[in-house]
């Protein structure tokens, strides 16, 4: 077992919440070369430690919080990955977030945090370099994410600590609850908040001052990191992201691309977008640009509402996803109300995207008569009704009353429960709500929704190669805005050039692709064990049945031919068979021989 020469310390901090103990879990260079870190390493732990049908909320279920080898170096790498089995979808899942958490974990001397067990009373963790403390969180329990963050800062007496906390939604077991990092960033979409809540873990705070990331060949690495950074600083398209964040896409996707989501994916045409989009935000709302660690693309926009009902509201956004799902998808035309909905979700620790999907589904179900106000405690959601939506968000977060309990189940279970033809407009993939890109207008996004590990996620890569590159980006913990979206075809070379001198590896560009395929296939095997196959890699029914009624992509539909094409290309690229099951030959090629029995057992069990 070789210790890493650079990039990693070879130590993961293993924390047992039940016994309130911690220890160092060594990681060998061989494993790190195969699974990198973050998402890949989390998938490796899950697939080797879990048996089929493992309950994601078991006491010994883990959450792996991983930075990557490039975090805390001169390369642009600042994402933190939360990898675990999702209690929401029952599949392998990963949630990434920005901010400064990843480098702080590295400066504290760890390659990742492996958190398992369940505390008897609410606790939170403070991790300062090698020291881990289990602190009482009974006063924090029930508090919103920003209040908890503030209490942690106060107790640690250090404003520079980096925190990750859950809100009331996670505590109350909402399956799409998220983790909020440093107040404004979220690791969402995979129910990590619910797992934390189940573990009675309010959150953790990290401060690292003692260590620097070791580098095998400093001069060579710095030169390579320089190439990486310059590509980021010079990318012309990213001037847009710098100026507008992703919020500027709202108008663009509406007017030009025809893939904005409107009123539960009924259409993509919503001229009122000008009242809630990036331009309105630029004119009246945004006051400050903020960046993650060492990143030239400062995509986070902070603003304040001046005047009106929500005067003084300081918030982040709208981003394309939050503004799409809690704005146009709910037919919102009032900017401040939309921002208030986004901010409420962040405060309660709810995933903006899934919450928006649930609210829109409930509204359409009410419109079509599948739901009655009595089902929702007398609430009668209508498009553009900010106050009712605000109340619904609160009910979801606290699972309050009949309405809260119903809506906290998510779209898939809701539509199953209410029936009455609501499956036709229940928009989810593998049980997870879609993000703000209509796959009829943005057909290549369907790869991400259907073929990605998590299901329903917009951020898994558009196209077979991009799926692989995203797997690498999430394992290296690099943001896609500073990675393959900038480099394009040169990504493999830029990344390999950085990794070799950093970690003392001897990679060729082919190794980049083998690793990408290995990580994707590992996750796929995990999901195949849970019963996933090509029958699940499908978009919601609406995308195949209803033509877009208006907009730049009027009359477009996602056809069966599109579906077939997507399956052939993806399965072919990763070496999976026509049912989406990794073949024995490709498992061997990726060095995943140990998973062959699992795949064969799953094939037999599910008749594939």
């Amino acid at each position, binding site marked *: 077992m070789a210790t890493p020469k650079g990039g990693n310390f070879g130590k993961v901090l293993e924390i047992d919440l039940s016994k309130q103990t911690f220890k160092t879990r060594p990681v060998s260079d061989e494993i790190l070369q195969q699974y990198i870190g973050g998402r890949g390493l989390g998938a490796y732990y899950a697939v080797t430690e879990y048996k089929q049908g493992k309950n994601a909320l078991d006491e010994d279920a883990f959450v792996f919080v991983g930075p990557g080898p490039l975090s805390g170096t001169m390369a642009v790498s600042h994402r933190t990955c939360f990898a675990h089995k999702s209690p929401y979808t029952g599949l392998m899942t990963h949630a990434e977030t920005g901010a400064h958490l990843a480098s702080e974990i590295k400066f504290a001397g760890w390659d990742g945090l492996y958190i398992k067990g369940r505390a008897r009373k609410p606790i939170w963790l403070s991790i300062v370099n090698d020291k881990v403390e289990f602190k009482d969180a009974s006063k924090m329990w029930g508090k*919103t994410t920003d209040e908890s963050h503030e209490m942690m800062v106060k107790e640690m007496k250090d404003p520079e600590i980096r925190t990750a906390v859950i809100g009331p939604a996670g505590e109350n077991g909402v399956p799409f609850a998220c983790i909020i990092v440093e107040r404004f960033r979220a690791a969402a979409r995979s129910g990590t908040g619910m797992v934390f809540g189940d573990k009675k873990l309010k959150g953790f705070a990290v401060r690292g001052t003692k260590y620097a990331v070791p580098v095998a060949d400093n001069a060579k690495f710095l030169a390579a990191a320089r190439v990486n950074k310059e590509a980021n600083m010079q990318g012309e398209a990213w001037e847009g992201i710098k100026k507008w964040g992703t919020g500027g896409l709202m108008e663009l996707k509406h007017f030009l691309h025809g893939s904005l989501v409107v009123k539960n994916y009924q259409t993509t045409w919503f001229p009122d977008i000008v009242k809630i989009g990036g331009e309105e935000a630029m004119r009246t709302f945004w006051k400050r640009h903020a*960046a993650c660690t060492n990143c030239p693309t400062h995509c986070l926009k902070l603003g304040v509402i001046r005047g009106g009902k929500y005067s*003084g509201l300081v918030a982040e956004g709208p981003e394309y996803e939050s503004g799409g799902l809690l704005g146009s998808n709910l037919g919102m035309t009032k900017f401040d109300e939309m921002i208030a909905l986004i901010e409420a979700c962040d405060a309660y620790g709810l995933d903006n995207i899934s919450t928006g999907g649930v609210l829109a589904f409930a509204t359409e179900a009410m419109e079509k008569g599948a739901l009655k106000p009595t089902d929702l405690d007398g609430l009668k959601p209508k498009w553009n009704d900010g106050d009712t939506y605000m109340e619904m968000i609160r009910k979801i977060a606290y699972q309050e009353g009949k309405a809260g309990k119903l809506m906290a189940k998510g779209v898939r279970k809701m539509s199953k429960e209410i029936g009455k033809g609501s499956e036709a407009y229940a928009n989810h993939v593998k049980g997870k709500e879609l993000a703000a890109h209509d796959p009829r207008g943005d057909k290549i996004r369907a790869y991400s929704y259907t073929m990605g590990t998590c299901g329903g996620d917009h951020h898994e890569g558009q196209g077979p190669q991009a799926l692989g590159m995203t797997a690498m980006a999430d394992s290296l913990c690099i943001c896609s805005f500073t990675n393959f979206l900038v480099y394009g075809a040169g990504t493999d070379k830029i990344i390999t050039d950085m990794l070799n001198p950093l970690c003392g590896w001897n990679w060729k560009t082919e190794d980049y692709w083998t690793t990408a395929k290995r990580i994707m296939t590992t996750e796929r095997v995990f999901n195949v064990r849970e019963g996933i196959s090509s029958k699940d890699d499908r978009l919601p029914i609406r995308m195949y049945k209803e033509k877009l009624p208006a907009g730049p992509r009027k009359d477009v539909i996602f056809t069966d031919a599109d579906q077939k094409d997507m399956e052939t290309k993806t399965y072919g690229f990763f070496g999976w068979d026509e049912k989406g099951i990794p073949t024995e030959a490709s498992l061997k090629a990726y060095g995943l021989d140990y998973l062959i029995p699992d795949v064969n057992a799953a094939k037999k069990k599910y008749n594939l």
Partner: protein
Amino acid sequence: MEEKKLPDVLEKETTRRAFLRGTATAAGSALAITAIGGIAPKKAEAQYSVQGVPGTKPYAQKYRFAERQNCTGCRSCEFACSLFHTGNVRPALSRIYLAKYKDIVDVPVMCWHCDDTPCINACPTTPKAIQKDAKTNGIVLDPKICLGAKCMKCQEACPAKYIRGNADTGQPLICDLCGGDPQCVKACMEQAGNPQGPCLQGRPVGIGVNMAFRDVTPDQAGKDLANLLFYPNVEGKRVVPAKTKTKKGR
């Protein structure tokens, strides 16, 4: 005395122009003296021009200035600084750092290279453990003389509350301007690229750039900035949701 002279001066014909010229020269020499301590090397140390515009003449960056409202909080200054001084990226040892204020603004906390040098005046050792490099205007620490954590008189004296201790040695972390080519300015110039412009800048003179801002603690600077950007919510408090309630865990 001056009042007596005044009529004489006014009687002269070209008085106004001469007066202006005279003032300019006087101010110029005063500037030169304050700014560069009497030595004005012709060759500029910095290889990077202040405006970041190609083709502009680079000049010595003896003082720094921060457009605080432009800071994106990316910490590239910390990364560049610690890399230059320690060979590794380790922001805890950076000679410039960001202070968070109420999570809504970041304040770059840095050495202003004051001409009246309160930190050096406060240094109790003989010879002084910290001294100004006459050529670059950077403050250089002699680790052999410095008393370290038990002293920190410089930290107390710093009007900007900038100086912090080295986590390893206990000695103060003070800015030496990287020998005349401050890496933090370079990093910020390159990548901040805010629509309004970058935050850190290097200047050949200190007058007008450091006096108004240096006597402000990081906390006060954060307050100022929050007031400037986020009025009326200068504390950055969350307004929504109004209703939260405590519920016991499952």
